[in-house]
């Protein structure tokens, strides 16, 4: 293979792939980046078997071929090269030369024959979403995904697609809280409702790779999901198992509502969290919300001190007091884009809804904690 490519483009490609590469894989081929030169295009492929990324770009190709180069070494070297054209010349499994200006680096190529083939992007359903919609949804829903066990259903995001309405619902829960985002998709293929569960890590990685412009086309296979956007092909393994029946935990009505300035409550919760020490019994920083005329927010940290803040809020319904994990409340407030936020309550131990005022497409549900 003989190709020439500007260093900035080469660096951008290998850095994007770097995060899916395992450095201590039992399969040496997975520690590498597969570089292919074909049809005037240069492609870069990496996978950890859970997900894979294929990037494609134009390059000056003198001789087609493929090479598998150690990812960490390649990235470090390319990062330190000057921003000039880099000429890559080598044979699979042999020595590869990276020439630039009057200098050159030699690397030993791994065997590209050992690298897993790109899965066949066949599927029963296909749909298209604006990249920005997808990125926003992952940012907002991902806050509630569990992160203790990456193979658990609770680390997954349920993505329901309804072809009859062209609507999607994304849900994540770690059982203590649940976040849900609704939106629109353009269904390209498939008439059956689909509800894959995809690891949060996989979708977050895809969101990181996407720009805010353009659209992403998803294809849903039996065990994998495929995404295609501009010069990117991405695939990830689905989680097996049954997502908990989340609709059962969504309250249908609320007794009390409090509307307030989003920034004001976010800053107040941040201040309270500075003081809130992890309760040794609950292992959570607890924040009390007292709704009565306005909203009083307080936290007590034994042997440290206490904080109490009164916020202006429009209250409807009877007063009550709830205790929430302050970290959960803050993460929900931080992903809300609206200027005003609404908190919806029923009873002190029933789930609380955190939502941007007027935005019915997103909310986060938090289960209060019992305090003495």
């Amino acid at each position, binding site marked *: 293979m003989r190709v020439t490519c500007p260093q900035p483009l080469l660096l951008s490609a290998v850095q994007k792939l770097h995060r899916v590469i395992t450095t201590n894989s039992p399969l040496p081929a997975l520690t590498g980046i597969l570089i292919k030169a074909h049809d005037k295009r240069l492609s870069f492929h990496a996978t950890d078997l859970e997900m894979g990324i294929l990037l494609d770009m134009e390059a000056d190709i003198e001789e087609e071929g493929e090479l598998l180069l150690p990812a960490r070494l390649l990235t470090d070297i390319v990062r330190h090269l000057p921003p000039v054209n880099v000429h890559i010349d080598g044979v699979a499994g042999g020595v590869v030369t990276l020439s630039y200006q009057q200098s050159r680096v030699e690397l030993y190529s791994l065997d590209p024959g050992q690298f897993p083939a790109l899965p066949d992007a066949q599927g029963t359903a296909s749909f298209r979403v604006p990249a920005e919609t997808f990125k926003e949804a992952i940012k907002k829903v991902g806050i509630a995904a569990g992160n203790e066990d990456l193979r658990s*259903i609770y680390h997954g995001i349920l993505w329901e697609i309804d072809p009859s309405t062209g609507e999607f619902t994304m849900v994540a*829960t770690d*059982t*203590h*809280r*649940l976040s849900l985002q609704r939106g629109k998709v353009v269904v390209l293929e498939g008439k059956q409702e689909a509800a894959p569960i995809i690891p949060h890590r996989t979708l977050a990685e895809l969101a990181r790779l996407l720009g805010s412009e353009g659209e992403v086309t998803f294809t849903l296979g039996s065990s994998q999901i495929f995404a295609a956007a501009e010069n990117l092909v991405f695939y990830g393994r689905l989680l097996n198992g*049954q997502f*908990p*029946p989340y609709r*059962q*935990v969504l309250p249908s009505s609320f007794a009390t509502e409090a509307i307030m300035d989003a920034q004001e409550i976010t800053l107040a919760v941040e201040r309270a969290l500075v003081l809130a020490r992890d309760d040794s*019994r*609950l*292992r*959570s920083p607890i924040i009390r919300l007292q709704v009565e005329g306005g909203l009083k927010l307080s936290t007590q940290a034994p042997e440290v001190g206490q904080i109490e803040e009164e916020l202006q809020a429009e209250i409807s319904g009877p007063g009550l007091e709830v205790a929430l*994990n302050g970290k959960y409340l803050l993460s929900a407030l931080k992903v809300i884009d609206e200027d005003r936020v609404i908190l919806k309550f029923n009873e002190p*131990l*029933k*789930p609380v809804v955190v939502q941007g005022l007027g935005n019915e497409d997103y909310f986060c*549900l938090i*289960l*209060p*904690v*019992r305090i003495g």
Partner: protein
Amino acid sequence: MSEFNPEDTLIAVLAGLEVKVAEIQRELRRLKALARNLEEENTRLRAWLTEAASEIKGEDKLRLLYEQGYHICPAQFGRVRSTEGCLFCHSFLEKRG
């Protein structure tokens, strides 16, 4: 005085490593057996809990089980839960209540 022979030293190091690898393998086998036993015991206990729960008539007993730190929601019944509550157990209790 005998001459220094680097191969002897290398062989001695390798022999030492071989002993350590054998020890690690023995420990790995022991831990695997322990994990297998714990998994079997866990499966038996979960089955026992499920059976016991089917005999529980009152909501109070399920609530007690929940408050003792076990999931009572169908998806995770009998599993130890964290100190924070579970939305699904909570909803399950509410429906029965």
